[in-house]
């Protein structure tokens, strides 16, 4: 225990550890906390997860909708979003999983304008509209399809052989908006009829997407996800979602899931720095020859250092949401709802800890073996490869070997519960793999302590004036 404390103290004195802490702080502060704040500010909005109806009825859940209607909804919604983006010259896309904004050049804007004219039949003046009248909140995609949206009811969808959640078109349900949502569109100044076929629309969207960048809202994936709608989107709350939020998630559970999603990309990479720095410090400080001949077993030393790195990484992960937990619990008390005080601890330990364990274990093994910074490259590569594609971000990322779980919404408790077995299996697999890598690290470390597995050349460490050969 004493050695564990010493290793934790060593980590706490590392600059790279504070890089991790500050990054988590930034993500929590700029990504997660604003969601808590904004959601608490619109509790009366039918789109808010907090919304409790006074009339006794929530948004309806209707059954399947014809493909042509879905296509029309997509074309109208996407075109309207494109008009809005064009007017503001601000296009959002997700090149690395996180949202980025792009400003087009004048030439690119004129290309977009041509496409918009083709799509709507409106002229340049009509499309440009009056900038003062443009209100982005009124050109949302939510209600374009006729005052409602398509949602995926919990229980719908299926899991394929690879463990990936699959949603078929028939799984979507159309939910009309009954509430006086602030996001109800107002198209009076630019009402239009789509002038092109669905095939031509897809071609135009592909071109537009290419101009904006990887995973823009106009990519095929995002169009399917956003304009065919799903239960993760900003749609009026249904009764099922209301029950899920207050009874299933007990309020804090939904926010804990969202918090875990916010930090997931950080967790897939930065924990590597903590263990790499801890292990390489021996080499940098020339402590190896003092540590190696000690009686401590390699397994014990490696396990203690690994545990210290994992615990120190998890410490800020567990501490950061405490503030929002208090805020949410206070709100729960004010409306007489029993919030789950342990939700953040449960979700971070179940969703985040296994990923931290695996990233740390892999970095540990590579660092023990190579005694250099190769692990940073490797985990960086892993971050790029194993990052879930954009379609999984909101839709849930529940494959057996997915390293991180994405659940970029406060809704979707039902979908998570549908996949809970797969989730559990995934986390267990990752944890087992992590333990395996730690065991391997201990083995390699043990061999290294005895002078084995040396990479590179050995260099001479001293150069003295005394040359015995001259006395022969």
């Amino acid at each position, binding site marked *: 225990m004493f050695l564990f404390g010493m290793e934790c103290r060593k980590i706490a004195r590392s600059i790279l550890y504070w890089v991790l802490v500050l990054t988590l702080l930034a993500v929590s502060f700029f990504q997660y906390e604003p969601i808590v704040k904004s959601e608490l500010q619109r509790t009366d909005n039918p789109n808010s997860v907090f919304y409790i109806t006074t009339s006794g009825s929530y948004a309806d859940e209707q059954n399947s909708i014809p493909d042509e209607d879905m296509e029309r909804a997509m074309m109208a919604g996407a075109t309207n979003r494109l008009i809005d983006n064009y007017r503001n010259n601000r296009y959002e896309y997700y090149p690395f999983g996180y949202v980025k904004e792009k400003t087009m050049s004048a030439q690119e804007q004129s290309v977009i304008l041509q496409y918009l004219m083709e799509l709507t039949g409106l002229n340049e003046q009509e499309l440009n509209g009056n900038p003062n009248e443009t209100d982005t909140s009124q050109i949302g995609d939510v209600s374009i399809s006729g005052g409602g949206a398509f949602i995926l009811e919990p229980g719908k969808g299926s899991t394929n052989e690879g463990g990936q959640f699959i949603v078929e078109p028939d799984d979507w349900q159309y939910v009309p908006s009954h509430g006086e949502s602030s996001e109800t569109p107002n198209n009076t100044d630019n009402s239009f009829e789509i002038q092109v076929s669905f095939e031509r629309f897809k071609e135009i969207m592909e071109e537009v997407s290419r101009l904006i960048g990887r995973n823009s809202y106009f990519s095929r994936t995002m169009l399917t996800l956003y304009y065919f709608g799903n239960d993760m989107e900003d749609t009026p709350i249904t009764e099922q979602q209301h029950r899920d939020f207050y009874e299933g998630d007990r309020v804090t559970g939904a926010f804990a899931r969202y918090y875990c999603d916010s930090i997931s990309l950080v967790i897939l990479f930065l924990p590597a720095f903590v263990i790499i720095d801890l292990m390489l410090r021996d080499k940098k400080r020339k*402590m190896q020859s003092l540590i190696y*001949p000690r009686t401590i077993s390699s397994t014990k030393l490696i396990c203690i250092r690994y545990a210290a790195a994992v615990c120190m990484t998890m410490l800020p992960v567990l501490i950061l949401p405490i503030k929002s937990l208090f805020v949410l619990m206070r709100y729960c008390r004010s409306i007489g709802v029993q919030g789950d005080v342990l939700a953040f601890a449960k979700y971070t330990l179940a969703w985040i800890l296994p990923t931290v364990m695996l990233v740390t274990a892999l970095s540990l093994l590579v660092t023990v073996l190579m005694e250099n910074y190769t692990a940073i490259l490797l985990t960086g590569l892993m971050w790029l490869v194993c990052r879930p594609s954009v379609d999984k971000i909101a839709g849930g990322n529940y494959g057996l070997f997915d390293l991180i779980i994405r659940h970029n919404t406060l809704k979707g408790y039902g979908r998570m519960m549908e996949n809970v077995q797969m989730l559990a299996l995934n986390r267990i697999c990752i944890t087992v793999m992590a333990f395996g890598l730690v065991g391997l690290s201990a083995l390699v470390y043990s061999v290294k302590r*005895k002078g084995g597995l040396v990479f590179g050349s050995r260099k001479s*460490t001293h150069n003295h004036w005394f040359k015995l050969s001259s006395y022969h």
Partner: protein
Amino acid sequence: MEIQIQALNKSFGKTKVLDNISLTIGNGMFGLLGRNGSGKTTLMQILATLEKPTSGTITFDKIPLGDTRQVRSLIGYLPQEFSLYPDMSVLEIMRYLAALSNLPVKVQHQRIPELLKKVNLWEDREKKVRKLSGGMKRRLGIAGALLHNPRILIADEPTAGLDPLERLRFYTLLNDFSTNRIVIVSSHIVSDIEAMCEKAAVLDTGKLLFHGTVEDDYMKMLRQLEQEVKK
């Protein structure tokens, strides 16, 4: 206590670093003399279980070198080149090394002050390592090597870079410790080995040139030559 080295060979790739070394080392101070690249450090690293011999056997009172767990409990090792975590204090370093030696906390409380007083660092126990002089770091290193009260102490060039006063302090310290124990020190300075040790071995290009007492004519000849070079 006795260390027996039989037909020891060590190669790094095609380079032979130790060539058929056979040596017996008993209690007391034992010196390893040799120039740069003679194989002293490699021999000491093998004795400290940090390197594996290519061939040959080494036993520590019949305990084979391969039994690293047992051997590591017998030896204390002070490498020639080492550094310490600069942001730790003298006391923290001692506690850390004690924990790595599986020393119970109760024993730590007794041993650490005792050793720090012995190496004259007790007054500086709260000082950060980065503020210690080279000599102080070496004394801290030796105190760390003695933490688990080893029966064999291996010190690779312990006085390199130290001023005469620090060197004298080191000789005394190692001499005090050598009663009923084996202390192996290496050096490229003949006078240092003569001053510290009763017995010595001379290595050159991995071969054992001499093995005997420091009063031997061979050692006297080396001393004489060393003085001539200095002039």
